[in-house]
């Protein structure tokens, strides 16, 4: 298993409960994938060839982080220049989703650390000279977004979280919230799109302080 134990959060619990790694054999998914692949080949579509391989009866291990690193190399940049992972999440109140225009939902969501901010590991923040509330820039080869920093202990040192996600609001109130958005830095790329048609909300990014707390 090419993971450190810490990197696979289910593992300690499975050991504790005496559970075996066991998944159901999904013959139907396998067959659907074969049929879909055959039909697409007949029709001359080749752009989905990699994705259709994911219709597996039992999932194989994939080097998902490696896909993103390779995408950087393919774009002609040095992965070392983008050493952090950026991911997204929703607040429990969905305050940056369907409730984005509701002041009350935004107000109660702000009781939770990280709402409307860029969450990063406290030790990483210290190393980069970033204090709580500082303005930070998250940059990838395709774009950049800014927000206020929220250093916390409960996050990996190599990862930042941008709660929210949607950066194209026209909604009154929501458009003035000044949220950072992962959309600006994640690439639309077929190579990073899975068989469900979803691009994962992940990006390799660089992180720096651009201003003090306001």
């Amino acid at each position, binding site marked *: 298993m090419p993971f450190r134990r810490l990197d696979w959060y289910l593992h300690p619990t499975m050991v504790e409960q005496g559970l075996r790694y066991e998944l159901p054999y999904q013959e139907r998914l396998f067959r659907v994938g074969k049929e879909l692949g055959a039909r697409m080949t007949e029709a001359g579509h080749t752009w989905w060839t990699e994705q259709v391989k994911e219709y597996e009866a039992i999932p194989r291990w994939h080097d998902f982080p490696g896909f993103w690193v390779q995408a950087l190399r393919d774009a002609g940049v040095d992965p070392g220049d983008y050493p952090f992972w950026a991911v997204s999440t929703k607040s*429990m109140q969905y305050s940056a989703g369907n409730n984005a225009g509701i002041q*009350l939902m935004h107000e*109660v969501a702000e009781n*939770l650390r990280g709402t409307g901010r860029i969450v990063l590991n406290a*030790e990483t923040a210290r190393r980069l000279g970033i204090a709580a509330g500082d303005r930070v820039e998250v940059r990838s080869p395709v774009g950049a977004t800014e927000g206020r920093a929220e250093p916390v202990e409960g996050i990996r040192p190599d990862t930042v979280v941008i709660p929210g996600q949607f950066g194209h609001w026209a909604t009154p109130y929501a458009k003035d919230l000044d949220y950072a958005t992962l959309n600006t830095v994640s690439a639309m790329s077929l190579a990073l799109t899975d068989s469900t048609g979803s691009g994962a909300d992940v990006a390799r990014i660089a992180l720096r302080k651009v201003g003090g707390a306001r």
Partner: protein
Amino acid sequence: MTRYVMVADLRRCVGCQTCTAACKHANATVPGVQWRRVLDMEVGQYPDVQRLFVPTGCQHCQAPACVEVCPSTATRKRPDGVVVIDYDICIGCDYCALSCPYDARYKVDEPTWAFGDQPTAPEAARFDKSKLGVTQKCTFCVDRIDSGLARGLTPGVDPEATPACVNACISGAMTFGDLDDPDSAVSRLLRENRHFRMNEDAGTGPSFFYLWDKEAGP
């Protein structure tokens, strides 16, 4: 006698702030004022970290610091333990807010609306001028308690006589009731679980108990 208390089970609270929102609806508090709120705390250092959600608000202390410092007698403690503020008497000096070990009090001087200069229709309908320029805080939904009692209902048992935050809690983390009744849910929870009170060393005898583990067996 009756002594109303709140019990919050820290093992059950998920920090969703539904109680916060319910309180704001029930009491029509203006933006930025939260009589009930849930703190988001973190204990430990990476990678050994726990996240902790702690509901808080006025703790309705047995020996309230706010009552002690109030120069106008606006803040007082009822015989059932609920600490209330008489807005007609309050002079807005804010001594109580400074004395409170729980950061539970708010003062709003100007009308404040959710979306800019003008109130929405619901805000206009529920605007309460008597709350301007005075101190305000959680009342344990005293209006619900009193109107419920008048109809023969039991606070903490019947939702109509129980604080809005308790009714709204999605995980059953919050329980309200009479600590002087040995058969009440709050008395049973405190018997069966280990508990603590926040800032106990301030010596104000808060009526807000936090559960964190089962009581050790005999």
